[in-house]
């Protein structure tokens, strides 16, 4: 599929939160991104040591560009370099995009329910953007669980989209601190049931976050009557993960 490494130019950098950064890459070849896919990134140290990690694509920039959004892990080997040290004009090696399961395709007419925890929102953001880009008429909803407003990646873009778009709905769950007047607490089965598209609408559902979050949410969705084969999951630490 996408086994070859390409040398990509870093053409843009954008801080999303104090610990997350978006990196815009330009590849030497045209690249087609399906929303939800990831790329493998390879870094080489001056002594030849190499490290490979997978990162979810947050935006496709046709014809030859894409963005990844990386959350810094304090004890990570690669992510601190990408978030703190990488500069515009640097080059990195990229393989992909890869992945054909956790993807949303514009040909799919179903309503879409996205559920993200923390930086698990990154591949979901690619879906939100692709849905907008396609001027898709089906409803798309994002339920986004974050520690605090400051920790929310893509916060302003998501809120403007939710105001401007007739099809996109956004709901926050704040687990530690919330804006004034909004509740604080972890997502539970009841809130989930009240927030997501009803199983009668048979939505395509994408869940991404830490393992415990994804396990709990996927289990509640099944309890709510959603068919297991309509629920696609991805966890960081794995495919599309960051370290």
């Amino acid at each position, binding site marked *: 599929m996408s086994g070859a490494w390409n040398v990509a130019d870093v053409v843009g950098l954008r801080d999303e939160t104090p610990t997350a950064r978006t990196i815009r890459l330009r590849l030497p070849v045209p690249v087609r991104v399906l929303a939800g896919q990831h790329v493998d990134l390879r*870094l080489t140290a001056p002594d030849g040591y190499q490290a490979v990690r997978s990162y979810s694509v947050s935006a496709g920039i046709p014809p030859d560009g894409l963005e990844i959004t990386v959350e810094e892990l304090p004890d990570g080997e690669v992510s601190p370099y990408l978030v703190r040290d990488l500069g515009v004009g640097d*080059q990195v090696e990229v393989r992909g995009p890869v992945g054909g399961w956790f993807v949303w395709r514009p040909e799919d007419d179903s309503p879409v329910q996205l559920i993200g925890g923390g930086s698990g929102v990154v591949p979901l953001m690619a879906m939100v953007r692709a849905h907008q880009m396609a001027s898709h008429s089906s409803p798309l909803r994002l339920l986004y669980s974050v520690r605090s407003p400051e920790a929310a990646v893509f916060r302003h873009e998501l809120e403007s989209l939710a105001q401007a778009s007739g099809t996109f709905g956004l709901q926050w769950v704040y687990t530690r601190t919330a804006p004034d007047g909004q509740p604080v607490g972890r997502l539970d089965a009841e809130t989930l049931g009240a927030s997501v598209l009803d199983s009668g609408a048979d939505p395509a559902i994408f869940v991404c976050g830490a393992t415990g979050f994804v396990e709990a949410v996927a289990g509640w969705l099944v309890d709510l009557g959603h068919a*297991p084969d309509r629920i696609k999951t991805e966890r960081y630490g794995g495919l599309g993960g960051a370290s």
Partner: protein
Amino acid sequence: MGIVSSGFQGRRKRDLPGVPPGQYVTEDFPVLSAGPTPRIERDDWVFSLRTESGTGRHWDWNVFMSLPQEDVTADLHCVTSWSKLGTHWRGVPVDAVLNGVDTQAEFALFYSYGGYTTNLPLSDVLGGRAWLVHEFDGADLPPEHGGPVRLLVPHLYLWKSAKWVRGVELIPQDRPGFWESRGYHLHGDPWREERYG
């Protein structure tokens, strides 16, 4: 050697022996799956075998537990680049399940509760190279890691070690499973970096 990032040092954990190319070592045990975790009680669990001629065998939990049991220590290598070394499992060698089965098939398609499938050459699951495991680190295998029973094929990338396994079909010709039909390699040898097909 690739494009050098002058500010990047890395930790060189990869220089450990026993770690295939392109892998790094983690102490965690990340969970990877494509959908909700199926919840299967041991009393409801059944493992089925079907050969290319359509004959079959079935094992319920009690019969399965009466098969020969082995303790296995193995290194795990996930295609997403992490490796976990020295993991401890207990289970039934696939040899014991296929013992005495009359087949000319050269390939196996394992299938799981929840619909997952993965294909392997029979030679990769026989000869003490693969197990149906039900314990991890001395405890019952948790559902998120594939319990009650998962396949363990440690010499191949971990997507071959199907979780929530419920059967195997012996087939004359190789047929791609779930990830193999979505861009991943038919075989998946980490030492040859058989990641993508």
